[in-house]
C-alpha cells in the first residue's frame, strides 16, 4: 500500500490578481515502509504538497489516495472511509512545539486520542507508548508542564502527540529546524528508529541534504510546483545540474569530493556521507 498523489494541481487564491499555481499536475507515489524525503527551494510547492497528504488542503484538481482510498471523497458512501484514511496520516508541522498548549505533557499528548472518544485506559496506554517512542520517560515527565522542557524535548513531546493517534504514515515538515546540533542528531535518530523499529512510513521535508543523504531511501525534489526528480539519494544527488536548477546543492561532503575530483585527485566523487568521504580519502592517500 502507499500514498498516491494523482495529477494534483493546487491554485492559491484562484480568480484573483494573486492567483498562484503552487502544484501543477503532480503525480507521485510514497511507498509504504519507505523513508521519503522531500526537498526544494522555498516556494517550490513542497509544503503545499505535504498539506495534501492528510487532506488539510483539497486539490483544485486531481486526487490523493491513501492505501487506495480517495481522501477527498465527500460522497455519502465514501465520506466515512475517507476520514479514516486521512487519520492514517499524522502531520508534524514546522516548529511543532508552538502547538503545545496543555498544562501537562501527558494531557497534551492525550488531546488527539481524547477527541476520538477512546476509553481512559486506552488513552493512557497510548500516551505512555508515544512518550516511550520519542524517548521521554513517562514517570519523569508526564506531569510536568510542556513549557518547562528544552527546545528539542518540546518538539519530541509535540511529535508524541501525533504518534498517539497511531498513524501509519508520519509526515514531518522540517522537524530539526532551529535545534542545536545534538538536539538535531537526537531527534533524527528517533525518527530513524520509528522507521526501523515501528515500521512507520516517514515523509520528511528537509532543507538539509546532509540529513537526507544519511536517512532517506527515497527522495523527491520539487521545483516550481512540479516533481523535478525522484529516486534514491545516490541517484538524485548525482544529478548536479538538476539539483542546482532546483536551487539545491548536494551534501557538503559530495561538493568537496567533486572539487577534489575536478582538481585531478582520484577520489570517489559520488559519496553521500562524511564517512564515505573519509574512506575514499584514506584510500587515495594510502593511509590506514
Amino acid at each position: 500500500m502507499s500514498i498516491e498523489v494523482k495529477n494534483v494541481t493546487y491554485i492559491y487564491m484562484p480568480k484573483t490578481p494573486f492567483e498562484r499555481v503552487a502544484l501543477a499536475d503532480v503525480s507521485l507515489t510514497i511507498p509504504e515502509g519507505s523513508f521519503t524525503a522531500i526537498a526544494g527551494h522555498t516556494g517550490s510547492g513542497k509544503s503545499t504538497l505535504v498539506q495534501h497528504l492528510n487532506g488539510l488542503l483539497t486539490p483544485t484538481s486531481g486526487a490523493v489516495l491513501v492505501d487506495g482510498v480517495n481522501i477527498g471523497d465527500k460522497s455519502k458512501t465514501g465520506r466515512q472511509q475517507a476520514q479514516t484514511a486521512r487519520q492514517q496520516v499524522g502531520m508534524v508541522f514546522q516548529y511543532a512545539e508552538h502547538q503545545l498548549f496543555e498544562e501537562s505533557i501527558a494531557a497534551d499528548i492525550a488531546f488527539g486520542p481524547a477527541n476520538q472518544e477512546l476509553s481512559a485506559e486506552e488513552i493512557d496506554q497510548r500516551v505512555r507508548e508515544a512518550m516511550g517512542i520519542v524517548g521521554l520517560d513517562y514517570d519523569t515527565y508526564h506531569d510536568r508542564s510542556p513549557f518547562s522542557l528544552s527546545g528539542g524535548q518540546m518538539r519530541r513531546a509535540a511529535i508524541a502527540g501525533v504518534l498517539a493517534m497511531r498513524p501509519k504514515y508520519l509526515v514531518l515538515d522540517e522537524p530539526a529546524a532551529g535545534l542545536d546540533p545534538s538536539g538535531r542528531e537526537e531527534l533524527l535518530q528517533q525518527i530513524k528508529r520509528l522507521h526501523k523499529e515501528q515500521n512507520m512510513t516517514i515523509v520528511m521535508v528537509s532543507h538539509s541534504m546532509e540529513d537526507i543523504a544519511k536517512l532517506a531511501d527515497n527522495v523527491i525534489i520539487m521545483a516550481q510546483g512540479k516533481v523535478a526528480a525522484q529516486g534514491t539519494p545516490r541517484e538524485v544527488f548525482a544529478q548536479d545540474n538538476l539539483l542546482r536548477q532546483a536551487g539545491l546543492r548536494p551534501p557538503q561532503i559530495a561538493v568537496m569530493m567533486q572539487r577534489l575530483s575536478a582538481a585531478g585527485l582520484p577520489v570517489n566523487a559520488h559519496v553521500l556521507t562524511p564517512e564515505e568521504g573519509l574512506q575514499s580519502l584514506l584510500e587515495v592517500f594510502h593511509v590506514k
Partner: protein
Amino acid sequence: MAFIEIKNLSHIYHRGTEQELCALDNVNLTVEEGEFVAVLGANGSGKSTLARHINGLLLPDKGQCLVAGLNTTNAEELWQIRQQVGMVFQNPDNQLIAGLVEDDVAFGPENLGMKPAEIRRRVSRALAAVGMEDFRQFAPHLLSGGQKQRVAIAGALAMNTKCLILDEATAMLDPEGRQEVMAAVQRLHEEKGLTVICITHFMDEAAQADNVFVMQAGHIVQTGTPQQVFAKAEPLRKLGLAVPLAVELTWKLRQHGLNLPQDILTEDDLVTALEAAYVH
C-alpha cells in the same frame, strides 16, 4: 572603548515564581566596532536573551549593557541604541509588514520623520547593499526566504545601523537562501565595516567570524578565534554543539597519519590542503 560592553549582566525570567530561570548569569563580553562575532550554544543557553539586551528589547536585572557608550537602561539613550543596532529574527514571515518591499524598508526612516527625498535615497542604498534593488516594487510574500531576510537586513541598513544582530536568521532557509544571506552579511561587514553578531547553530557560519563566544546555561564558557574554539571537538560536543565538516575531516585524516595543517576551518582550506598534499 569597545562598541558593545556588557558588564556583569544577569537576566532572570519569571522572577519570584516557580518557573524562575536565570537565563544570563554575570556575563561579561566586549565587541569592537567592525568586528564579526558568532555566538554558539545549545537551545536554552541564553544566546537570544543576550542578543535582546544588545538592542534593549530586554533590560538587565543586574549589571549593564553599553552600546557605543550609551546605556540601555537610560530611556532616552535607548532609542539611539535601537537605531544603531538592527536585529534580524529567525522567521522570515514575521518581520516584513508592508505591502511592498520598498515601503517595508522605508518604515523605519518614515517613523523618524525624515524628508521623502532622504527616505528614498536611504531605501535605494539599503536595497542595493543587499542586492535586492530589482525587487523594490514586489510584495514581500512573493519573495523567497533568503530574499525576505535580505529585505529585513535592508530595513536595518536604512536606519544607518552600525551593528546587525542575526538571531538564527538562516535557520529556516534552504541552502541557497542561507548562502545568499551570509554572503550579503559578509560583504556588508567587509565593505562597510558593519559590526555583526551572528547567533547560529550552523558551525560553518561561525567559522566565518573573527571571534566566537560559546554559551552554556547563561554563561560564556569559551571565547576565541574560530581556529581556537573548533580546535577541540570534544568539549563542544558536550555542550550540544559540533565542529564544521572540514575541521572534523581534517582531524580524522590527521589521526590516520595524513600530514595536514592544523588551522583548517573551511571547505576551501581543506580542498587546498588536500590538493597540496596530493602533489607531494
